[in-house]
């Protein structure tokens, strides 16, 4: 518990740098994914646009969803949103805060992908090579090519080996032009995103600081409460299991003594502790019987106090717990649900 608390406090106190680190890693992963991706423009009139825009827009969408899926807090948000009201009211501001902070983290990888794609230039070159202004860049006026033919020729610009329109418009000129447009778009996109992030971050203290502090505290609280509850349940399960198993072995010991019709051996005082640990099982046959019984007939999930004689299920069927008839509606519902 102490170790958990120490680590947790360390993370909380360094929350800012921890989150910045995560964002940096996601950005690097996104850039690495792009450079490892083998871009292959189809160089066909209608396919180019679909392929280029698809590579530009579909992976960011997937990365955005992945950012949500990989975030541990999404289940916390969903739970808080869907839980019945009960005795504790729901604060929509807290839900909004949790959703916004998750969305901001999830936006980093898609934005990096789009920026790197635009700055690299291959996607835009592939997508828009058929829309090139041939009149300004080349000399298309004296060719007898129809529009469809011209489009087919232009579509081959990204594939230098099969490009056959060098006399209409030089390949390098076209590629440079398209890449220039793409990079300009890329830098404008980067600037726009950075400006948005800056505005979002800096306008908050000017307007809603008190509400923000409240939402942040309660969203941390919900997170901590959930973790502590899980930990308490785990501790409880451990103790439950310990007592259950202990009672099982005690039951075995009692049954054995009754079956053999002689009182349990009296152990000397100094060996009592070791004998206690043996839980009354002192030979191979008994141990085998205990293991078989544990597998075939596990004891019921019902811990009884040590004073009462108990059946641990070794002697026979499992007995359902006996309860008094419930006087209230709610209790009846609870006991009928096993």
């Amino acid at each position, binding site marked *: 518990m102490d170790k958990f*608390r120490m680590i*947790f*406090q360390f993370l*909380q*106190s360094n*929350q800012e740098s921890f989150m910045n680190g995560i964002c940096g890693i996601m950005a690097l992963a996104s850039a690495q994914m792009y450079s490892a991706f083998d871009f292959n423009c189809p160089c066909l009139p209608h396919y180019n646009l679909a392929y280029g825009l698809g590579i530009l827009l579909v992976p960011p969408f997937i990365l955005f969803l992945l950012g949500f899926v990989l975030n541990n807090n999404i289940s916390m948000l969903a739970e808080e949103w869907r*839980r019945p*009201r*009960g*005795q*504790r009211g729901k604060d929509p501001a807290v839900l909004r805060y949790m959703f916004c902070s998750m969305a901001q983290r999830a936006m980093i990888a898609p934005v990096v992908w789009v920026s790197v794609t635009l700055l690299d230039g291959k996607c835009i070159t592939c997508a828009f090579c058929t829309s090139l202004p041939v009149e300004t*860049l080349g000399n298309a006026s004296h060719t007898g090519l129809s529009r469809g033919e011209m489009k087919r020729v232009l579509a081959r610009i990204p594939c230098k080996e099969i490009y056959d329109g060098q006399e209409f418009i030089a390949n*390098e000129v076209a590629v*440079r032009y398209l890449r*220039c447009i793409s*990079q*300009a778009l890329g*830098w*404008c996109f*980067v*600037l726009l995103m*950075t*400006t948005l992030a*800056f505005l979002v*971050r*800096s306008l908050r*203290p000017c307007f809603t*600081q008190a509400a923000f502090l409240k939402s942040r*505290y309660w969203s*941390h*609280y919900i997170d*901590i*409460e959930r973790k*502590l*509850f899980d930990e*308490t349940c785990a*501790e*409880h399960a451990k*103790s*439950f299991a310990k*007592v259950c198993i202990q009672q099982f072995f005690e039951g075995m010991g009692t049954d054995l003594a009754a079956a053999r019709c002689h009182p349990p051996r009296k152990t000397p005082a100094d060996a009592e502790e070791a004998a206690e640990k043996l839980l009354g099982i002192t030979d191979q046959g008994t141990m085998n019987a205990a293991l078989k019984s544990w597998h075939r007939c596990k004891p*019921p*999930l*019902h*811990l*009884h*106090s*040590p*004073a009462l004689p108990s059946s641990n299920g070794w002697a026979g069927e499992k007995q359902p*717990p*006996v*309860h*008094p008839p419930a006087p209230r*509606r*709610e*209790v009846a*519902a*609870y006991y009928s*649900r*096993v």
Partner: protein
Amino acid sequence: MDRFRMIFQYFQSNSESVMNGICGLLALASVKMYTSFDFSCPCLPRYNMAYGLGIMFVPPIALFLCGLILNRQSLVMLEEWRRPQGHRKKDLAVIRYMCSSIMQRAMVAPVVWIIVTLLDGKCLICAFSGSVDPQNFVGFANTSPVQVQHLLAKVPCKDDELVRNNTSRKAVSRYLRCWSQALGWSILLILILAAFLARWLRPCFNQAALLQARHWSNYIDIEQKIFEETCCEHSRLFAHKCILHFFESMRQEIKLHSFSLPREGEGAEGEEDLLRGITDQDQVNKLLKMWYYEKPPLDVSQVTQRHPPGRERSPLPWADSPGTRSKFPQHTDV
């Protein structure tokens, strides 16, 4: 208390160095971005200037904004500036000091970008190749103005067929690069001189006020960090008490309803404490169901009074009182 002091000292000594570290990282990232960026000048008459100057000035603006975003102190400064006065007066000197230190750190990465761009030379060659005087270069001297503009625009592109083996192209390129590098080194020298003078002459002007401003800006920063940490500690304790209270209420309900548990306290008392009276599969299921369907109210004042005289403040969910019945959700009756 000891732990608090340790953390406090850690923050105080590291706040500045963390900020400096981020600043250095951003400068390195700026250089890395420039080297991995594939600069390709369009080599077209009007586009060159836009592209060249765009690459030189737009990324620095983005880097500057990044530097402001990543710096924690900018938020602290904004909060201090916009907060209502309350019981604590606002000291404008502190805010000015924080603002200037934030700006200085945020300016490092953009300046590094601009200097690297100038020292490399490609941007200036691309932007200003169309603005040189063609009469100074033999290859461009006797051509028509339109043609010369067209040719000059192609200068940054070494492999273009029009200017591939043109010696004047190389001359223009060398000339512009020389100017670019001279500009780059001059700016670097001026900036370093300015930084040197500012640091050296600062003690001559108003050192006492500076020390005060620095102390109080540090204080505001640390105060905010400790407040956040205290809030975390508090919410942890709050959650702990809330959960204990919840288990205790469950234990009391079980005591009320079941007759088969004489709790005489014998046997493994330690384990019983941890079990908190929940010793049955059904009881555990009920506890988990209650935890989901009816989270306890955010009010741990009940814990401090073991036997509250009246249960008005936070009624137990199964307490048979008219006030709580209406809040009881219908779907627990399965």
